[in-house]
């Protein structure tokens, strides 16, 4: 006697992104901590020394957060107007920030009042940074100039007036105390050498430059502006290496993952994209709620900090080993593995006589009902809330099985308003799914056949039938359009292919969208 063969659930290929090492790595972050700031978060900078606090510049304040604190550990509020670009010195002791009122302020991280004020710019200063010898400050301003300042004397050393528009971003070399790079709204990125009077290399980005970034080796430079992210080879005199256009709005911020293997770009289109720096392909993508203005990545990728226009600061911390252990500890409340294998892993001794016990086969509830030919009940089970929403393929498989048994009509018939509307809801929700269409079209036709005599009695069902009709009409229109497009493409392919005398074989055409037809005569 053969055992009952359970209903076969079709396994459909999983749609969506493929699981790669990168997705695993970048998904391994906890749920974000969100902190409301006083205004749009324009800059995030991590302290180079442990414990890697980070300075968040938002509106007229700079907050310094600890690595795990929800509250700022320190605040600098002595700004007369909007602050810009709070940056740490390489020893983590000093912090510099520009301001809308054109004054550059230097703070001691442990203190409260500005140690130095650098006055000289005539417009808002959006760029501030320390040079690698720690004694000088680079600033860039909306007055088209960038300047170098001496910290001890608080005096201006040099002024460069080569840019012809606002300077909004820049970076100093970590290896050479004299080199620094600025990006401007005049579409250029310029490399300056403090030992000479003018820029050494000029690179044309093509759009207003919003952010620049140097690789740790400082051989490559990344600039972001407009929708483009461009990589330049400095050692070849500023030759463009690659141009990436993966965002559909202006890219505002760039960051490098700590090992230099991945590049992150944040954009006003609310995405953060992760690129592989060997082939510059997007390997991962983060979604955020609002347009992103600033992005910071903690050393060792321990956390991703993102500042948005809606003045929300989002901090994602990396899951560490201890956390996962904690979770495992919580799960261990369930019966242990030992309970389940109890007695099953017993190895019989030599003289033992084995009495085989029939293996009890587990059948799903709908299978048990199908085995007893309770077709309506089986369909009800398959239409249960969990299955219907989470695993529609099971519902569809049961409907298909009923159809194969020739009892689908019996199972569909005899339903009250609630049952019918539930069924119709499921059909409306899944009818246009190409995987389920053939089965559900049959079921929908049967429903119309069965219940056409009671149409007009229930407003709920009538509304759903109209929705179904609408849906089918729209779908047919879509399919027609798609077929037209396909035909056009075929013509184009055929004309573009080199015509050989034997190439009478048409180009491979596969119709991925089976046309659906349904009589909605309701």
């Amino acid at each position, binding site marked *: *006697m*053969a*055992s*009952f*063969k359970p*209903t*076969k659930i*079709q396994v459909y290929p999983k749609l969506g992104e493929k*699981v790669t090492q990168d997705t695993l790595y970048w998904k391994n972050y906890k749920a974000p901590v969100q902190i409301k700031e006083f205004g749009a978060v324009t800059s995030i900078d991590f302290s180079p020394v442990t414990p890697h606090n980070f300075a968040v510049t938002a509106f007229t304040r700079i907050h310094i957060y600890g690595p795990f604190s929800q509250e700022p550990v320190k605040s600098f509020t002595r700004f007369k107007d909007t602050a810009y670009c709070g940056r740490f010195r390489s020893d983590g002791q000093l912090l510099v920030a520009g301001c809308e009122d054109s004054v550059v302020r230097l703070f001691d991280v442990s203190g409260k009042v500005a140690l130095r004020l650098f006055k000289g710019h005539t417009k808002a200063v959006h760029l501030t940074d320390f040079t690698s010898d720690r004694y000088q400050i680079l600033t860039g301003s909306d007055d088209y100039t960038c300047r170098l300042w001496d910290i001890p004397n608080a005096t201006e050393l040099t002024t460069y007036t080569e840019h012809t528009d606002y300077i909004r971003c820049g970076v100093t070399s970590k290896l050479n105390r004299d080199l620094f790079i600025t990006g401007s709204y005049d579409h250029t990125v310029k490399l300056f050498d403090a030992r000479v009077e003018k820029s050494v290399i000029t690179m044309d980005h093509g759009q207003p430059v919003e952010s620049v970034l140097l690789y740790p080796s400082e051989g490559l430079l990344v600039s972001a502006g407009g929708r483009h992210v461009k990589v330049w080879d400095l050692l070849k005199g500023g030759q463009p290496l690659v141009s990436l256009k993966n965002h559909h709005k202006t890219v505002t911020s760039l960051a490098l993952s700590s090992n230099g293997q991945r590049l992150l770009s944040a954009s006003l289109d609310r995405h953060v994209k992760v690129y592989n720096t060997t082939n510059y392909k997007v390997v991962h993508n983060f979604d955020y709620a609002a347009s992103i203005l600033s992005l910071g990545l903690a050393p060792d990728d321990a956390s991703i900090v993102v500042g948005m226009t809606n003045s929300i600061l989002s901090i994602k911390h990396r899951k560490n080993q201890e956390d996962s252990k904690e979770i495992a500890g919580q799960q261990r409340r369930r019966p242990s593995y030992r309970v389940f294998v109890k007695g099953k892993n017993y190895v019989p001794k030599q003289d033992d006589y084995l009495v085989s016990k029939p293996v009890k086969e587990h059948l799903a509830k709908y299978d048990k009902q*199908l085995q007893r030919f309770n077709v309506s009940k089986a369909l009800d089970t398959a239409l249960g809330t969990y299955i219907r929403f989470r695993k529609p393929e099971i519902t569809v498989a049961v409907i298909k*099985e009923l*159809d*194969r*048994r*020739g009892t689908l009509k019996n199972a569909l018939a005899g339903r009250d308003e609630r049952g019918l509307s539930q069924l119709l809801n499921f059909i409306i929700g899944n009818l246009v799914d190409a995987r389920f269409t*053939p089965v559900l079209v*049959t079921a929908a036709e049967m429903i119309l056949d069965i219940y056409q005599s009671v149409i007009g009695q229930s407003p709920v069902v009538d509304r759903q039938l109209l929705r179904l009709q609408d849906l089918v009409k729209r779908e047919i229109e879509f399919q027609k359009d798609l077929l037209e497009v396909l035909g056009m493409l075929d013509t184009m392919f055929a004309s573009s292919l080199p015509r050989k005398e*034997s*190439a*009478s*074989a*048409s180009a*491979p*055409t*596969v*119709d991925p969208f*089976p046309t659906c037809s349904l009589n909605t005569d309701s």
Partner: protein
Amino acid sequence: MVEHGDIRVVHCGGSKINFRDPVITHDSRFLLCASGEAVKVFSTSTEECIHELRGHTGLVTGVLLRPSNHLQVYSSSLDGTLRLWDFTDGILIKVGQRFQLVAVHLPQSGDQMVEAQELSAVLSGVNPNPAAIAFGRGVRTCRHKDNKKGGWNTFTCVACHPKDDCIATGHEDGKIRLWRNFNHKKEYTYSTLHWHHSTVSSLCFTPEGTNLLSGGVESVLVQWRYNQESERDFLPRLGGAITHITVSPDGSLFCTSHSDNKITIIQSCVKVSAVIQGLVKGDSIRTDLMMDPRSKALVLNGKPGHLQFYSLQRDKLLYNLDIVQQEYIHESGLQQFEVVKAAFDASGSWLATVEERHQKAAELELNLKLWAFDEQTQSFVLNTTISAPHDAQITAMCFCQPTDSQTTLLVSTSKDGHFKAWQLAAPAHTEGPSWLCDFVSAYHGLVPECCSFSADGSLLAVVFQEVVTVWSPSTWELLTTLSQPPGAVSDLCFGRLSCSKYLLGTTASNLLCWNLLTCSLEWTTSMDVRRLVADPLSENMAAFCYQSGSTDLFVFKPSEPRPLFSHKAVCSGKVTQAVFAPREEMLESCEESSQWLNRSQLYFLTQQMVNNISTSAEEKQNENVAMTPFYLLLGKHRQQQQEHQDSDSSLWAERTLLQTPAHVLPSTSYLCSMFVQSLLISVSDAREEKAHAEEEMESEKEEEDSEEEMESSRSKPELAAAAATESDTPALTKAQARELRRVRKLDHSWLAGLLDS
């Protein structure tokens, strides 16, 4: 046998075993069933066929145990003879000439009632056992009811209670009626049992009359308690529809015959103990005949949704591979999934199957499944399922042949005008390798009919109605198209070995051969080739041509204009399926006309018109004339050996004496004299037996003579029949009685003395 003395068509098995209800012997150890022209004796415990009682020249129509000697069995056949067999040894004891009527001694359909009644009267005369009488009475009932109730409820089967005055009838609407007090005319009452949803096809009471068994299309055996009809036991999912139910005389075993050529043996506690499965012949053979390259088994579709692997050497079904993997619903008018195409790759490690279900004109459900051979379980495991591989039915499918190539390639052609190439893709991270579509192509919107790979796998030929296209599988370029005289090409195959430059095709009226080097037609002959088969091990090809009601066979090499072998009228009717099966041992025949059979054998399926046996597998076999006397010699030698063994077995007394532990035996001095005496007896006995053997041979001769006599007296069958029944018992018992007497004497002479003391 006819034109060629050395090559003949041999029926090689696959006959029906569910034609008539089987018989279980008294000791429940054997099961006898009619199978084609023979009676097969199966063991009920091991499912093995122990003997095949051959001798009838027509279809065996009935098997019945001899009531007076339960070690013997009667069989009736369409050839007009009744034969008596000893089934434990498989020996023919007696041939009786009777009417052909015996052949139809069990028809139970309503329109044959009258005829059946006459017949059963004859039967009850032959063996007055209660079953036959009951059957006669049952027929009378049927006639009664036919008169009374008219045609609104047709009877399908009837059974009589062995003790009570009760008759059970099965009806077409699934009801069972129990009629009581039937002997009192016009006073009978009846009760109705209803469980079956469609026709009850068989009913049977257990010997004690405590249970009633019924079965029908649902393939559920229902056991009703007599007088407690609300209590029932079920045994579901037995396989095909139940056609017969029989119970062993002691009631310990039930056995059901199924429409899928299967006999299930069920213990009385309603548990399946054994399954005897024959070659399943469904409504039609949709898949081609194939050889499994590993097991050398014949593969074709069998039960619905299954692929069967049938060993031709042992005439036994090896196993059924469940392709569809769905619960089969026994209901008429339901469209089920059917296996329509299957293909093996050259090494037998991959199997591709296509199943389809055609419900309405618009809907076609197609699944292409690829199965990998699992070395551990020695069976095929599902690797990939491709649902809807094509938009329309798949017309042909073939694997790339070469065994050494790294990538396996499958090509399928479909009525949607495309052909697709499927390739084993590299393994993904988590799962093993699976099959993906590699290439899709079409040719002028024509429908591809069949496809074939060349022997080395470098060329693929696809037939698009009248045009043969040749493709290169490595680059998927169309290399050339071959033209030909009008008519769609229906069959296509490449030549092999030295003839690999030839491509052969058949149309409705022509056999065509192209030379692939010149891309031109090499030769063509006008014949209606129904089937073209290539031998995988040689250059030979076999063509089956249909001509005026019968099929001719031609075996030829593509390079030679003259056929190697031709055989007119191999069988009547059309041959649609044939296959070359490689031999296990190569034959060394030097005769030119039979050399083509040295490496492989040719099997083909016929569609017989007569009777309702739809198909029968037959074998072309090489048989040497000189073999026959040698075989006889060998046979005699074997017989003598057997006799030796028999005489050995008569020495069992000594053996038991020597094998019994010494401490349980009487003292040696006590035993000695008797032991010596027994030795003396056995020696004389052996001599006696030799004499017996001679006598037996003589009596056999006599029997043969009497057979001849009977054949000569065929003009008066009744007389001969009477003579047969008379001479039946003495002819049998003479030899046996003597043997029995001897055994008795031998066994007990000294043991009895032992007991007396």
